[in-house]
């Protein structure tokens, strides 16, 4: 009997250790994503569709530069640097976002890790080969049905994420992206960097340049799933909107939910309803003259639950 209890204890300790080790991988992956120079082609599969894109990521003295470019379909391009985002729109690069309040790096602070382990069961489930690299496969199984399972393949050498899948509660693939070709380090094309530096003459509107400002909006979400913590509450300009929009972001460590609140301008786009793209679900609804929009890499039921529990508590 004693023996059995001891054995149980040992098994529990091992299990806890396994969990911790898997969570350590997250830190490695996040660090590698920001600190590695790489260039590669990846395939994104979602909703029965497939898209191929090229991504280049380099770290310069003034921060990270990243270029994402579609290889099939219409020409699409995104360049990011320091929380600023440029898009290829109408044959020119236009700045679409600028976030000075970006305080994310270094990623995965200890409290995030503890939130994560409270809501997901992390497990290393083996090694696999992706894009010619050997990778460690880690599965994050949610402890409730308000979030998706995440499966990641991390390069055992560099720690870079080589493949990631989001799984639904029947283990069906909601979305998946996989590198098919990847060069880590070495001679990577940087010729595009100068052309879109922030101080270049790219068109950018005044209010967008300001980015968001932290606020206490007075809005709260009553029925937030366990483990989601507020990471951001800002008032921000948004392209195509005349008035600033309040954005509140909640995260459980692996996925996030954004709540947008703005006065309803009666626009035709403000029709309520649910839509999705891959793992992202979006739910719109006009409530008492306010347009609520909830976006997140969570199941549809979660964005609905969140939107229906938005209340004004006052400042």
């Amino acid at each position, binding site marked *: 009997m004693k023996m059995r209890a001891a054995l149980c204890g040992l098994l529990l300790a091992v299990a806890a250790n396994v969990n911790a080790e898997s969570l350590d991988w*997250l830190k490695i*992956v*996040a660090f590698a*994503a*920001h600190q590695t120079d790489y260039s590669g082609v*990846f395939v994104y599969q*979602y*909703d*029965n569709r497939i*898209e191929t*894109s090229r*991504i280049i*990521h380099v770290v310069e003295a003034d921060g990270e530069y990243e270029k*994402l470019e579609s290889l099939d379909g*219409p020409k699409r*391009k*995104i360049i990011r640097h320091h*929380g600023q*985002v440029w*898009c*290829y*729109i*109408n044959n020119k690069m*236009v700045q*679409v*976002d600028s*976030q000075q309040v*970006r305080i*994310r790096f270094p990623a995965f602070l200890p409290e995030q890790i503890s939130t994560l382990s409270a809501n997901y069961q992390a497990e290393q489930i083996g090694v696999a080969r992706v894009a010619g690299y050997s990778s460690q496969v880690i599965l994050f199984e949610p402890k409730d049905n308000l979030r998706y399972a995440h499966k*990641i393949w991390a390069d055992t050498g560099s720690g870079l*994420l080589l493949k990631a899948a989001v799984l*639904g509660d029947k283990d*069906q*693939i909601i*979305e*998946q*992206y996989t590198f098919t070709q990847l060069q880590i380090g070495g001679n990577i094309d940087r010729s595009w960097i100068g052309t879109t530096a922030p101080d270049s003459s790219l068109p950018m509107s005044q209010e967008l340049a300001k980015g968001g400002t932290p606020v206490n909006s007075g809005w709260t979400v009553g029925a937030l799933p366990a483990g989601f913590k507020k990471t*951001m509450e800002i008032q921000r300009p948004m*392209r*195509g909107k005349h008035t600033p*929009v309040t954005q509140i*972001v909640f*995260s459980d460590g692996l*996925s*996030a939910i*954004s709540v*947008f609140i703005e006065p309803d301008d009666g626009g035709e*786009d403000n029709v309520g*309803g*649910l*839509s*999705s*793209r891959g793992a*992202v*679900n*979006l739910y719109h609804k006009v409530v008492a003259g306010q347009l609520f*929009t909830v*976006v997140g*890499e969570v199941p*549809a039921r979660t964005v609905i639950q969140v939107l229906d529990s938005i209340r004004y508590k006052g400042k």
Partner: protein
Amino acid sequence: MKKEISTLMDGELFEDEAEGLLNQIKRDSDAHKDWEIYHLIGDILRQPEHIHCDLSAKVRERMQDEPVVLAPRGREVKQKMRTFALSAAASLVAVGVVAWMSAQIAPETFPQMAMQQAALRPASVQIKPQSSEYLMAHQEFSPSMDMSGGAAYIRTVAYGTDGK
């Protein structure tokens, strides 16, 4: 009784228990019928070219009432399946068949999965391009950025709007 017969067929009974049960089956005609039906179902699920014909007349009669055990179309058939599927041989074979089927579809699992998922998920409406500003705004603060960096932007519709 049914459960015990099923366990017996699974080979999960101890020798003495099995012996007792077999004796009981010999004596009890109902149990004997169950025993035969379970074996018949196991045989049918294995899809042999020929099904043993040395079944008692009673079993044959019953089989005529529900001739297609493998085609789950009516509730009645489903009910039967539920009742009998516990039978060891049957469930083993069923698992085998499923495993075999998934092995068959494995190389192209994704499209199949995606199709199923489209049917299962309530939100099958694609996010409209007009809403991509929200996706962009959300993406910058999503933990997926920490994992996959800019590749996560692939989720924003067409990497941005069509310039409204």
